[in-house]
């Protein structure tokens, strides 16, 4: 009689054809398997299989880009859940906020999480930009990725700003009114741009619908595309760049 242990169950599972068709690398802790884990996985293969040890140090990047990315993931997850309970119309939008607060299970928690993650993402993105500047990580070949980063910061601000209107309370309404009144001042295009953004001359239910579509579809797609370019270029340019390095004295030409 064979003893049935968890380990033996896993071992048998791993030996099945179905498992082998999904996970192609072995389970033993060899460097070959560690490499395969990274480059045979769609989501991990943006990493190289080996990284410079010093890039793992906290002071190399302060993980600020990572914090912003983590916020983006959390915002996507909580945002999709919030969409199940939200109608972008007046006055239902505001009633949905009240329902989130009093009726929906964990609705308030969901909204709180979404809001604080949004603020943290803006803040972390700004700090990330400062970190990159003071580490002079914008130098060749990374110049264009800096520009992509600036655009990403603007998209992040727009995402936060369009989301600010959606609760349709006094705070949201007047916050957006103040901001869009500033846009009106731009010479030549100001008035027209504001009309296009709001779908009218004042913040109304047309504006709510437009901000909703921008917030839930247009800007997240823009963020996803730009973020992909941003991260892909980090990899192509040799990984994250920390503080400026002097050419290593131990580096030699053979």
């Amino acid at each position: 009689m064979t003893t049935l242990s968890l380990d033996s169950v896993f071992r048998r599972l791993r030996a099945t054809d179905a498992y082998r068709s999904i996970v192609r690398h072995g389970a033993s802790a060899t460097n070959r398997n560690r490499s395969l884990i990274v480059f045979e996985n769609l989501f991990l293969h943006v990493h190289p299989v080996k990284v410079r040890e010093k890039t793992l140090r906290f002071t190399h990047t302060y993980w600020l880009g990572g914090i912003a990315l983590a916020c983006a993931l959390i915002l996507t997850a909580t945002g999709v859940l919030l969409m199940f309970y939200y109608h972008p119309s007046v006055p239902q939008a505001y009633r949905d906020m009240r329902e989130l607060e009093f009726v929906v299970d964990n609705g308030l928690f969901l909204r709180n999480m979404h809001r604080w993650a949004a603020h943290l993402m803006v803040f972390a993105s700004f700090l990330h930009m400062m970190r990159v500047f003071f580490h002079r990580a914008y130098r060749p070949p990374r110049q264009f990725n800096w520009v992509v980063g600036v655009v990403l910061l603007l998209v992040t601000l727009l995402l936060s700003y369009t989301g600010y209107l959606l609760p349709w309370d006094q705070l949201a309404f007047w916050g957006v009114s103040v901001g869009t009144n500033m846009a009106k001042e731009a010479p030549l295009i100001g008035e027209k741009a504001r009309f296009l953004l709001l779908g009218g001359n004042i913040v109304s239910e047309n504006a709510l619908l437009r901000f909703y579509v921008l917030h839930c579809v247009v800007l997240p797609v823009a963020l996803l595309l730009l973020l992909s370019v941003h991260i892909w270029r980090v990899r192509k340019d040799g990984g994250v760049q920390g503080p400026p390095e002097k050419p290593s004295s131990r580096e030699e030409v053979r």
Partner: protein
Amino acid sequence: MSALPPIDLVETADPIATPRRVALVRPDRRPSVRTTDEKYVMTFPNLIVREVILFQVVVIGLAVAAILFDAPLEGIANPLETPNPAKAPWYFLGLQELLHYFPPVVAGVLMPLLVVVALVVIPYARINQTAGPLWAGAGPRRALTLAAAGGAVIALFGVFKCWPIVVPTAGTLVAMFAARGGENGGAFRRALAKGTLPEWIMVWFAVVATILTIIGTFFRGPGWSFVWPWAQTVAF
């Protein structure tokens, strides 16, 4: 620094052909390979585990914040009832604070546009690639130029009575001059002395932006008058 191939060199247009290159190697120079003994580690598990932990820390931190602090929700939007003051989200309150001193087209359009343009051109401006410590090898002329430039900025914002910019500008200028000859001073002055001109400008920008945002968020009440933070409710 990067070894990019020349962009307008076409070796062959035939996709099947094997590209051939002829290299002439001089006897005194041989093809060399750059090697380094810098330490590398496997991405899995070293980096992946750290990324997972980072994500978990962010999730836990935000979950705790979400339990402790509720997102603000005021009464339903009413276009007929203007709150005083009506404030934009916090990250725009620096700009809204500027509205207090400048015409709207300057504070709301020109200045943000200048900031974005200035940020975009950073990697393409030569000074950001080559700048050394501000005072390294500097004669009296640099001090004069800096004092004049700083004085001009202070005068410009002083005309508009924009003290939240004037004061940090003066502070930055004082710190810049304190860094002069700081290589022989204490640890703090030695650190200051390492700053390049672009770094000083970015520090100035960050300090000004932070001060404007803090004033706009915490110190502005009805009619954009000065109030103490504890005399009002601040909603994020």
